[in-house]
């Protein structure tokens, strides 16, 4: 996508003029009152980082308990609270906010808009999050502790939980509100604020993936809010949505939850695809292969994601026609996903490749996410899923999608854009160490879990039969290695921001979006006050 841009002699001067102008406040008040998309993007990313480490600590508790058979460190109910909160914190606290952070920073710069469409709403979308996170964490301190139901919050186990469950429900309401408001903002920004000549089909792929994701979020977050509200009224107000004794059905909850839950998988994966679609062409020094088919494939994945939810429920006992429908629909997702993978590989084919840290994470993503996609295909097949449902195979599968997928992509994005945002260059050697250690330890944790699942270890158990000991030991050691490797990332991040070398104007010679080609590095506080005109 080589757009010709008429810049009206605008950048540089107008950017510099406002460089230190942070809306009139300084210190903490700057961050609380900010309506600047870059500030808000930064807030989202720091918030995601903090939650990533909080959720990671919970994972370490889980892996420490599972290091050997028997109960050593925690009681089973606390173990269940850990699995629940690890899931909720990582999904709603870490991964989703991280990609909203990227969206805030990048979308306006990439489409030539001065800011997000609703700048004040943007501030509120972010500032809802710390309150939601606080509520969620407070549930640990309630009588009975946090919910021990797994992040899926299945009825009627939710009815047995203490008041921490209600805290979690309200936290989910607020998180959902934040997501919906953020999504409305992103949709409006992309549809209304593109620079003249920036047609939809000329947008960088990252913007496309977020446009599609935002529609997914607006469609499904209210459904989740409905599911947890019904749980709340079943718990306290005498309704029986999920209680057979009053004419309800526990399986109804699962249908509603997964109608949200499956599109949610793509809410996480699709923006990750977007980041990868920026990084791979930049380091291949070659345009993205099959741009149009990439857009159509992403849209197809999003649409299909609405008609596959019951593949999470093959064992609830649905009619054979239901099983077959959901199986066929699910396997169909492999087609557009395949198209994306082929396009990425073809982008690299006959390019001029170099392997800086963002590209390493992108290739790691491509390889491992595809592996996770293939185990997804295995799980989509009803008879095989009946053996593997609710085992560690499923745990392995979705961590290949969530960690090697979304998280690797987030790391690629951070290393890729950090020079643009801060004007500083990270330490490449440390970055590469971070990649290789993360890659090795990730597989040490999760590859062996495929074996555990096939051999019959159920998920969400604090203790296990002796035949599962070896793989669990390897997995737990991997988890601690993985955690330590992330400290390397933190160190690199802090030293870069504090005392990194100045980044050149174009640290990545193959990057071709407007933010790289027509904005200075580091970017000034305000950009595109006069929109560029693309010819």
């Amino acid at each position, binding site marked *: 996508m080589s757009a010709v841009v008429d810049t009206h002699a605008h950048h540089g001067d107008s950017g510099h003029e406002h460089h230190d102008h942070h809306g009139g406040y300084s210190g903490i008040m700057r961050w609380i009152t900010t309506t600047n998309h870059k500030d808000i993007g930064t807030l989202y990313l720091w918030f995601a980082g903090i939650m990533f480490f909080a959720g990671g600590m919970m994972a370490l508790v889980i892996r420490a308990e599972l290091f050997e058979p028997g109960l050593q460190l925690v009681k*089973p109910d606390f173990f269940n609270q850990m699995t629940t909160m690890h899931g909720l914190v990582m999904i709603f606290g870490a991964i989703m906010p991280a990609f909203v952070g990227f969206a805030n920073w990048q979308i306006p710069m990439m489409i030539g808009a001065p800011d997000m469409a609703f700048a004040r709403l943007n501030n509120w979308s972010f500032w809802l999050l710390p309150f939601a996170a606080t509520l969620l964490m407070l549930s640990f301190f309630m009588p009975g502790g946090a919910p021990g139901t797994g992040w899926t919050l299945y009825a*009627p186990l939710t009815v047995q939980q203490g008041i921490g469950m209600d805290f979690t429900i309200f936290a989910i309401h607020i998180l959902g509100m934040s997501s919906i408001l953020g999504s409305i903002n992103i949709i409006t920004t992309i549809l209304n604020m593109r620079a003249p000549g920036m047609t939809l089909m000329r947008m960088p792929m990252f913007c496309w993936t977020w446009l599609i994701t935002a529609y997914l979020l607006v469609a499904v977050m209210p459904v989740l809010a409905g599911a947890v509200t019904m749980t709340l009224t079943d718990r306290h107000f005498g309704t029986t949505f999920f209680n057979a004794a009053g004419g309800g059905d526990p399986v109804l909850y699962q249908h509603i939850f997964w109608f949200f839950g499956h599109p949610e998988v793509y809410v996480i994966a699709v923006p990750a695809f977007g980041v990868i679609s920026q990084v791979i062409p930049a380091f291949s020094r070659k345009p993205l292969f*099959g741009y149009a*088919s990439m857009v159509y494939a992403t849209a197809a994945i999003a649409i299909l994601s609405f008609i596959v939810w019951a593949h999470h429920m093959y*064992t*609830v006992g649905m009619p054979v026609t239901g099983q077959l429908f959901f199986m066929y629909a699910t396997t169909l997702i492999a087609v557009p996903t395949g198209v994306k993978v082929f396009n990425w590989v073809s982008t*690299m084919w*006959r390019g001029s490749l170099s392997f800086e840290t963002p590209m390493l994470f992108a290739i790691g993503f491509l390889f491992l996410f595809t592996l996770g996609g293939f185990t997804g295909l295995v799980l989509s097949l*009803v008879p*095989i899923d009946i053996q593997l449902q609710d085992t560690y195979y499923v745990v392995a599968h979705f961590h290949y999608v969530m960690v090697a997928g979304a998280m690797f992509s987030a790391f690629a994005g951070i290393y890729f854009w950090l020079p643009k945002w801060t004007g500083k260059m990270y330490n490449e050697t440390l970055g590469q160490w971070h990649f290789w250690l993360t890659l090795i330890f990730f597989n040490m944790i999760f590859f062996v879990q495929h074996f555990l699942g096939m051999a019959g270890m159920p998920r969400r158990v604090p203790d296990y039969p002796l035949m599962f000991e070896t793989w669990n030991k390897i997995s737990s050691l991997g988890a601690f290695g993985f955690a330590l490797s992330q400290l390397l990332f933190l160190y690199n991040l802090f030293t870069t921001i504090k005392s990194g070398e100045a980044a050149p104007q174009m640290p990545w010679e193959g990057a071709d979006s407007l933010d790289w080609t027509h904005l200075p590095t580091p970017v000034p506080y305000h950009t595109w006050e006069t929109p560029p005109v693309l010819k």
Partner: protein
Amino acid sequence: MKGSKLLCALAGLGASVAATSAHAIAWYFQGPASPIAQDIDHLHQYVMWLIIVIFVGVFGFMFYACYAHRKSRGHPAEQFHENTAVEILWTVIPALILIVIAWPVTKVVIAQKDTSSPDLTIKATGYQWKWGYDYLKGEGEGISFVSMLATPREQIDEGAPKDENYLLEVDHELVVPIGKKVRILTTAADVIHSFWVPAVGVKQDAIPGFIRDTWFRADKTGTFRGQCAELCGKEHGFMPIVLRVVSQEDYTKWVAQQQQAAKAQAEDVNKKWDPKELIAHGEKVYSSTCLACHQANGRGAPPAFPPLAGSKTVNGPKEGHIDTVLNGRPGTAMVAFGKQLSDTDIAAVISYERNSWGNKAGIVQPAEVRARHK
């Protein structure tokens, strides 16, 4: 190279971990003991081979590009970015591969769902945290028992040496004859559980208030072990399913034994028990049935599991206490034990509760429990 040293260190660590494990390393499906489990195994291998071929093909291209099309080797970047023919091809071919996969899978799905004309029908009821089995139809009709984890708590909590079948052993095994079509009806009394025996290829959620079904026809004798597969609260990891498949002869013998034992155990509810004996028996019932929720010290785990020490119900009128144990408390985790325990057991456990942890509220005889049955 630093990287290869690290890999060596990791491999060494892995080897030492493997060496410390006294047990065979399980890494694949348990040996199939039914035609369906066999089918699942074959399907899995079939799909895995397809996947491996595709994976190696696609990433062969990628890694070749990583090697040959590097900037450091001076490879110039070409600028092509679309090719309609190729793009159509790689949309259509995967779709065709899916059809090749879907065909054999569909046949197995339909076979798995065919629960018609069973030789034996057994209802499996999930409780927090044990399984109840009722032989409803076929040889052995009327047999009914509860199956609980038999692993001693010391092995779980206190690091005592663990048995070979740690966490996979129960007091009463589910027994079925070889070669007979066994239909399992699943339901639950409290929350959702899942009945899972990997070796016969069966996993079916047990949903409170609903009956679901599944089936298997075991083609090997032996003992096959599985676990509850749906998170059902704190003891979810401690409610295994043990299935013993025996020959037809042995099954007939087992049925006769069970029926005799049931007759022998037919209780005399009018027996007046000595309070000490009753409380001592009650303590046993308590530790197998009530302890997981209400705890050994009677303090429970509020709010889900209320304390019994000082409880109004326990220290109140006998009738209220008996009714609670017999009929449960709807909407809570307290289930109706009238369906699981004999009147003698219920009288004993009530007596134990009313005379422990500082409670002093007298004893209850079996006849008083019988009188409260509706």
